[in-house]
């Protein structure tokens, strides 16, 4: 049954648009964040290290990377199987994943200085349990770089080919493989990073 203009108008008035919803949510979240920043002792939460804020940023981006990267990889899997319905979401999320991967690496480089410094976690592990550094950390620091070029390449291909990709089974299979490899690197780096930080943080 076709809606009358009056009914359509009422419907528009009753339902907020996605933009209004997102802006409202963002404004309220920002307000709560500002209240928390001014009232809570955030510095106690970050710890006393010289690079506490940088470490927090690295951890935050890494965690965001896991959340967004996992969602993106799921959509990549849907593309791989040819059953994707949210291709435009995949385009946006792949670009965001790429940015997060780059930011995580930049902040990771920054705190790596503390890790290697005299008396830092590296020295501690080499003295007490060298395998932690030589096998787990060394692997983690390199595997953490894998997602960046892979995410850039996948994002480039998705944006360049657009909807054509959905029809091209061979190429979309390769994109799916790339997402799987990048996600594997992301998860290994995250889990090893969390484990090593638990043993000795910067």
């Amino acid at each position, binding site marked *: 049954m076709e809606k009358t203009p009056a009914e359509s108008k009422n419907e528009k008035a009753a339902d907020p648009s996605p933009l209004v919803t997102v802006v409202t949510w963002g404004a309220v979240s920002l307000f709560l964040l500002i209240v928390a920043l001014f009232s809570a002792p955030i510095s106690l939460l970050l710890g006393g290290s010289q690079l506490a804020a940088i470490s927090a940023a690295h951890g935050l981006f890494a965690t965001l990377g896991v959340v967004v990267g996992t969602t993106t990889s799921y959509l990549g899997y849907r593309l791989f199987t040819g059953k994707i319905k949210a291709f435009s979401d995949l385009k946006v999320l792949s670009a965001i994943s790429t940015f997060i991967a780059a930011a995580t690496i930049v902040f990771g*480089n920054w705190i*790596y*200085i503390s890790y*290697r*410094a005299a008396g830092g976690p590296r020295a501690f592990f080499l003295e007490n349990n060298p395998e932690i550094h*030589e*096998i787990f950390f*060394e*692997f983690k*620091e*390199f*595997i953490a*770089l*894998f997602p960046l*070029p*892979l995410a*850039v*390449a996948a994002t*480039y*291909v998705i944006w*360049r*080919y657009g909807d*054509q990709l959905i*029809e*091209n089974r*061979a*190429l979309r*299979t*390769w994109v799916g*493989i*790339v997402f799987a*490899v990048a996600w594997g690197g992301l998860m290994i780096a995250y889990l090893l990073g969390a484990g090593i930080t638990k043993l000795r943080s910067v």
Partner: protein
Amino acid sequence: MSAGKPNGAAVAAFLSAMIGLLTMGMVHTGTAASSSFSAWVLSVGKLWIPNAQGIGPYSGKETFLLVGWILSWAVLHMLLRKREVKLAFPVVVFVVGMALATLLVYTPFIDFILGK
């Protein structure tokens, strides 16, 4: 992609990512084999990364990753962008290259090939 854009640009993008990571793996293995090579790799990192001394030869390895990746992407893109490529071979090359790149940053494998 017969009806649309040729797939060569995608092949170039994926293979170059693998080449960059494989380059990094080979350089890392080289630094494990030779301390003078490791010092040279650090000097490469110092050319552009702030505080590169603090992160050691890792800075140079990241540099080689970037250079290998971007240069190979530029070259492969120029060569392949207008071509329709059969994907079976490049996909196999990509997967094998990624496996090698992974092994070359895994210390027990490096120790094995260096006979340590």
